[in-house]
């Protein structure tokens, strides 16, 4: 049972990627109902609360924090195995707030996404520092857009060159787990745009097996983490 919470208030992409554009949030006595993709996958995003795709959420920090609090407090998620929180880029209001508000619930950890170039890594190092400072465990780092294999000649190109060794080297240097690389695949963008599951649409893609390996490692981490918590109890 999975819940996906989109706290990117200014740029909510999850509804589109899940094929849920145009859906609305319903309300009951037990709170706001998430929008369900399938019985075991519920989603919440500010995107569902906007009446037009052109509506801009031009809010300063405190208002954004208020909505995030409401997402956590008022959404009736039910019993879930995983709550995945998608965040905007940065180390600001949303990030501080989500960590603060979830502190009592014991966050398992954070998965950090980067692309291979140093321009991206330099920001990700800041994000890793943020996690250390707020005592948020790091499950690991994923290197996205890692290489492209030409569909015609099958040669690989590094469109975003890992000039300083990419995420793998950074993880070694910072002693943080490296979860894996996901190559560029035009089908990923297409599936997201159409709101379809890339993993179902392109099961043979190298990107699919990369995703699955990474997801497995995340699940293993969470199982281990859960086991350790139970031991303490």
């Amino acid at each position, binding site marked *: 049972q999975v819940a996906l919470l989109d706290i990117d*208030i*200014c*740029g909510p*992409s999850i509804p*589109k*990627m899940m094929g849920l554009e145009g859906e609305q*949030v*319903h*309300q*009951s*006595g037990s709170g*706001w109902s998430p929008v369900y993709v399938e019985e075991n996958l519920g989603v919440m995003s500010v995107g569902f609360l*906007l009446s037009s795709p*052109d509506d*801009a*959420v*031009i*809010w*300063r*920090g*405190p*208002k954004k*924090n*208020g*909505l995030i609090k409401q997402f956590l407090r*008022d959404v009736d998620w039910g019993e879930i195995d995983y709550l995945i929180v998608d965040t*905007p*880029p*940065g*180390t*600001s*209001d949303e990030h*501080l707030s989500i960590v*603060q508000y979830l502190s009592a619930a014991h966050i398992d950890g954070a998965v950090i996404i980067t692309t291979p*170039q*140093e*321009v991206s890594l*330099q920001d990700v*190092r*800041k*994000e*890793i*520092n943020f996690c250390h*400072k707020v005592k948020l465990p790091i499950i690991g780092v994923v290197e996205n857009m890692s290489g*492209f294999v*030409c*569909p*015609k*000649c099958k*040669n690989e*190109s590094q*469109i*975003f*060159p890992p*000039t300083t060794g990419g995420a793998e080297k950074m993880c070694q240097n910072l002693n943080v787990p490296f979860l894996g690389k996901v190559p560029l*695949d*035009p089908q990923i*963008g297409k599936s*997201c*745009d159409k709101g379809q599951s890339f993993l179902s649409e392109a099961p043979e893609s190298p990107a699919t097996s990369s995703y699955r390996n990474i997801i497995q490692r995340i699940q293993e981490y969470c199982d281990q983490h859960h086991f350790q918590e139970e031991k303490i109890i």
Partner: protein
Amino acid sequence: MQILQTCSGSAPSRCLPYGTRPRSSCTSVPDGLAAPGKAGQAEPRPVVQVPTDALKISRHLTRRDQGALTSATRSHAGKAPKTALEPPFSGFEGHPQQPNATAPLPGTLLRASDALLLFLPERSNLAGVRHILLVLSGKGGVGKSTISTELALSLRHSGKKVGILDVDLCGPSIPRMFRVQDNDVHQCDSGWVPVFVDQDKSISLMSIGFLLEKPDDAVVWRGPKKNALIKQFVADVAWGDLDFLIVDTPPGTSDEHISTVEALRPYKPLGAILVTTPQAVSVGDVRRELTFCKKTGLRVLGIVENMSGFVCPHCSECTNIFSKGGGEELAKHAGVPFLGSVPLDPQLSQSLEEGRDFIQEFPKSSAFPALTHIAQQILDGTLQQSS
């Protein structure tokens, strides 16, 4: 906008009956979003006093500045910063006793600026800037900083003097793109001296990246602190005479954007360039950015579609990795100019990584024509404006 939260901020069950779907009439998201002043007025003004952590910026002062700085420091040392809005999150709202590299706003500097006001000329620091343009996007990772950098380089090659103000405080990319990430910011009588990219002084930069003790230090600030630094960037950087000031922004439509537009409003910015990638997911966010521009009265100079196709260097096959055409369609739909499509170009990425001048060094590269065409349209636009 159907935002349940604005039903007096109380839990939705208290303002809507059981089973009711949210009604648009229930929302009171301020139409005051139309005027950024109102958005600013939606929250109480914080008292921003800053920690006295010394920063790189204060290291290279002239003797005169040092005098002003010392007296300022004596009178203001030890004041803790206060943000009136939310309870402090320990370790980040900056207690002067703790050396806190993540709250680098220097109290000495702010106070020194106040002291220096006595010596400041009447002229504002932006008075010598002919055109201000903002580079915006609703989406992250689409290439705003890349476009800002390449636009500056192209304009420089047309003989213009350009400044870049990097207001992405959490993820400042501009210094590295010019290979000046280790430079310091100096002070002068008029304020902060921007960092020059080379001896020519034809490109100057300001970014929080220059103000961090260590490059990996995270700037973990809530809105009010970010707003304060942005105001300072706009008021206190002594740009001198520039043809163009390019303002590189983080993704979104929040604090940084509202504050930047508010602070620049008196200087009548030329407008904004919006960057997107071709996919619908990206375009979806950039549509919101267009609304932001409309509501804040910021003219849209045009849309750039970045990462638009990849030509394989081995076999020349073109693959639309991030789909195609979304930016152009959006421009048509929104009735704004389409400035061009920039393809994915490993030489461009490499150039940015190494802080090189792509426009000078790679004129035969696939991204070169698109980038120079964008700059030309900006130049033509400014010529039209002045004629």
